[in-house]
């Protein structure tokens, strides 16, 4: 057994294949759970019971829904641009999967002599890769809206473009202090060479100060974390920023004309993206998979980092669900004002402040 695993992970090609399949499986199973989690939590917040029939506590409800969507008739309206109409759901899935490929979801495991990183690929431009892929995620929504040949999807698509381009800027700005801070951590106080590799960022958050506070970046970069989370909610088109699919105004938004498995693809992509942004926030600000293993025997201890990662991610996902159950949808002009006049200036101001403080700490005051 060990020899087989060692042989597989020793080979670059087969280890890539196995990791891709594993990431795919994780995301699918996780989505099944996440949809159930959201429906259940929202139900309790609204004094309802929520899905509780299929399987224990309704856990199989999403699976049943998925099977239903899979076998449903797919209606293609007459006025669609067929090529783009069919490409859009697939285009929604690709960036969602690719983003999770670069996120480390556990401590590297040693099998025999090979070290297996629990991460699809450790890019040295991991953070930028995430931003690049999330900029590609807009295409599916706009294409779907445009290719449907119908007015509500088009409105949804145009809204999505403006919203996602605006909030991407805020998201990128929130991540710049992280790279700066990483450079300081690497060089022990002075400015050194930073890193954008996500696994390296997790390693840099190891240790603690004053004995009990973990060395997570969020304690230094709280404004960045807040800006990132607000932008992340807007990027994934979740309430209160779900104007892209505001059912009281534009029916279903960009996916109005989609049914069956094509709709399911959009649905999946939305939930995977939600999981992704939470996982990124955990990796960058909340120490990723770091956490105590309580001195457990090594047979169980290897799974503890994965458990910590999932626990932290679901804590953030709970906030997503909580927001949805609590806040009413924003007006469109409020959304744009928040993005351009509040978040981006706030991000810039925090970046300048942080840079100045760190420059003082490293180089001393300019008059001394």
């Amino acid at each position, binding site marked *: 057994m060990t020899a087989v695993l060692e042989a597989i992970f020793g080979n670059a090609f087969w280890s890539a294949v196995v990791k891709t399949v594993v990431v795919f499986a994780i995301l699918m199973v996780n989505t099944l759970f996440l949809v159930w989690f959201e429906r259940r939590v929202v139900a309790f917040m609204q004094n309802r019971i929520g899905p509780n029939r299929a399987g224990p506590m309704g856990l199989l409800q999403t699976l049943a829904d998925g099977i239903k969507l899979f076998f449903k008739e797919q209606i293609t309206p007459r006025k669609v641009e067929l090529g*783009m109409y069919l490409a859009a759901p697939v285009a929604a899935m690709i960036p969602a999967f690719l983003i999770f490929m670069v996120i480390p979801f556990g401590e590297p495991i040693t099998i025999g002599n090979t070290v297996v990183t629990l991460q699809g690929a450790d890019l*040295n*431009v991991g953070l930028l890769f995430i931003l*690049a892929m999330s*900029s590609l995620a807009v295409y599916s929504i*706009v294409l779907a809206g*445009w290719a449907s040949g119908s007015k509500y999807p*088009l409105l949804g698509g145009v809204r999505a473009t403006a919203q996602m381009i605006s909030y991407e800027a805020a998201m990128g700005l929130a991540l710049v202090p992280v790279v700066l801070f990483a450079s300081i951590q690497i060089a022990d106080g002075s400015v050194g060479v930073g890193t954008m590799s996500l696994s390296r960022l997790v390693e840099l958050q190891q240790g603690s100060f004053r004995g009990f506070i973990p060395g997570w970046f969020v304690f230094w970069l709280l404004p960045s974390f807040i800006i990132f989370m607000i932008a992340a909610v807007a990027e994934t088109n979740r309430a209160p920023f779900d104007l892209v699919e505001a059912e009281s105004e534009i029916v279903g938004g960009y996916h109005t004309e989609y049914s069956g498995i094509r709709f399911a693809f959009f649905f999946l992509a939305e939930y995977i993206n939600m999981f992704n942004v939470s996982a990124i926030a955990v990796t960058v600000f909340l120490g990723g998979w770091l956490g105590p293993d309580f001195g457990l025997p090594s047979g169980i201890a290897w799974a503890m980092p994965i458990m910590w990662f999932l626990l932290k991610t679901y804590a953030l996902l709970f906030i997503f669900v909580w927001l949805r159950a609590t806040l009413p949808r924003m007006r469109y002009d409020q959304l744009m004002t928040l993005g351009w006049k509040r978040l981006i200036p706030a991000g810039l101001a925090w970046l300048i402040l942080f840079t100045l403080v760190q420059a003082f700490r490293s180089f001393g005051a300019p008059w001394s």
Partner: protein
Amino acid sequence: MVETVVFVIFGLAALFGAITMVWARNPVYSAMGLMMTMFSIAVFYVSNSAHFIAVVQVIVYAGAVMTLFLFVIMLIGVDKEEDRTENLPIQRPLALVLILSFGAAVVVAGRLAWTTGIRNPLDPVNGTVEAIGDELFKRWVLPFEITGLLLIVAAAGAIALAFFKDDDDAEVDPWR
């Protein structure tokens, strides 16, 4: 081997995208073709282990195409197709001549010896981000800053052109 396969697939994709961009009657398909070409070029950068440039290529160009997309939908209209009447009669023969000379240039360039890929595979690549940062913020810091200034001037100029059309309109306060 892998590099060749990747090159052939994405080379064809880049060509297909470029041809679509010029050929498509619908401007949205043109924008998508441009996006495809940009993305394929990013893949070439990756296969030459220039990860940073690849990612920046996707962020900058794919992001910019998105804006183009929006302009197409907003300004030209959703389902309007391009009018193909030729206004400059010399344009098509000229294009043919240019294509032929470009082909000749490719043939000539193909005869030269080219060095591609990583120069020495045993040489540890210490992250292209670090290397680029070193070059950009130490040796080339002045050109870098000047380019930034130039871009800001261009953006400010565009805004100014949009707001102040003639001298007559200049009295109107644009910030009102």
